[in-house]
């Protein structure tokens, strides 16, 4: 029996946008700045639970997110660009997360990694202390589903985030654009 998968897999983010001028030589200053920002995304070492281990795996030699320049994990939010919410956020942690986010200088990005950070995931029902999605606390740019997502999935999310930074669009704009495309 021939079977096909119902959901067409998402188009790969890196392949959507052709950079004019073949890569590095860009015309506008904005583009140069966005290029720099997108290629230098320093994460905050912030992990609450299981997804943090997959984040460590993504840093490890086999997956090595340093290829994209992400390996400069900063322990202090003052120097970080992206906060990867790797794990569940509970009510007690929520103010701390908000504070960490506020301490980061602009421009800053947020990746919600895994089911817990997106929506509370396994702890959505019948729990009294779990925040049902980190985007109730801070705005999230990219969501990765999975529990926990593979290291490759994290890399995919980072590439997706790079695409967002390069496009120079705000969160709402890029959401609107992608909803129109029907993805």
């Amino acid at each position, binding site marked *: *029996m*021939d*079977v*096909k*998968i*119902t*959901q067409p*897999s*998402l188009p*790969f*983010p*890196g392949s959507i946008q052709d950079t004019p001028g073949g890569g590095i030589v860009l015309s506008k200053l904005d583009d140069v700045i966005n290029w720099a920002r997108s290629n230098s995304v320093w994460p905050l070492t912030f992990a609450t639970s299981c997804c943090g281990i997959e984040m460590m795996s993504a840093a490890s*030699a*086999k*997956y*090595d997110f340093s*290829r994209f320049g992400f390996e400069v994990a900063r322990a202090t939010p003052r120097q970080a660009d992206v906060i990867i919410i790797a794990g569940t956020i509970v009510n007690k942690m929520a103010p701390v997360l908000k504070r960490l986010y506020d301490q980061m200088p602009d421009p800053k990005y947020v990746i919600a990694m895994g*089911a817990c950070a*997106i*929506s*509370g*995931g*396994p*702890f*959505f*029902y019948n729990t009294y202390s779990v925040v049902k*999605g980190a*985007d109730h606390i801070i705005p*999230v*740019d*990219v*969501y*990765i*589903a*999975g*529990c926990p*997502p*593979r290291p*490759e*999935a994290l*890399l*995919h*999310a980072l*590439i*997706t985030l790079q695409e*967002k930074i390069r496009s120079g669009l705000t*969160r709402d704009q*890029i*959401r609107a654009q*992608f*909803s129109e495309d029907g*993805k």
Partner: protein
Amino acid sequence: MIRFLKNYFTEVFQAVKSLFLGMKLTGYYFTHPKEIITQEYPENRLTLNLSERFRGEVVMTHDEQNEHACTGCSACELACPNGTIKIINKFEINAEGKKKKAIDAFVYHLELCTMCNLCIQACPTDAIKMAQTFEHSVFNRNMLTKQLNLAGSKLREGVE
């Protein structure tokens, strides 16, 4: 005194030796780039072979007539520990004029799913299975809520 000096120098020598051995090991890796084990995602996307058991997301299998095997028994919904699956049923009137239960929408919340495989185990008709996809990154959380049965799909004949 001599023994003390001897011990002292042995200790210093051992210490320096241990440091040197450590540097030798890292030096070995520095001079042997073949030890590098990095797999370059996304360049290796096409050759990336995930195990067939890898649980990436739940999908419903459809054949070429756009038919699936889900009877809407909601065994998966019951088996799911955290309400990832919602089955909305409708009643269809078939050729013989009988009312028959069928799924209207098989709603799957990928943002909640923990890939625990309990729904697949529970399914009596093997209508759903785990796919090996993992590139689920989206800008909008709503896009993770999916309807697994394709538009206009029907229950395959003979599946009860």
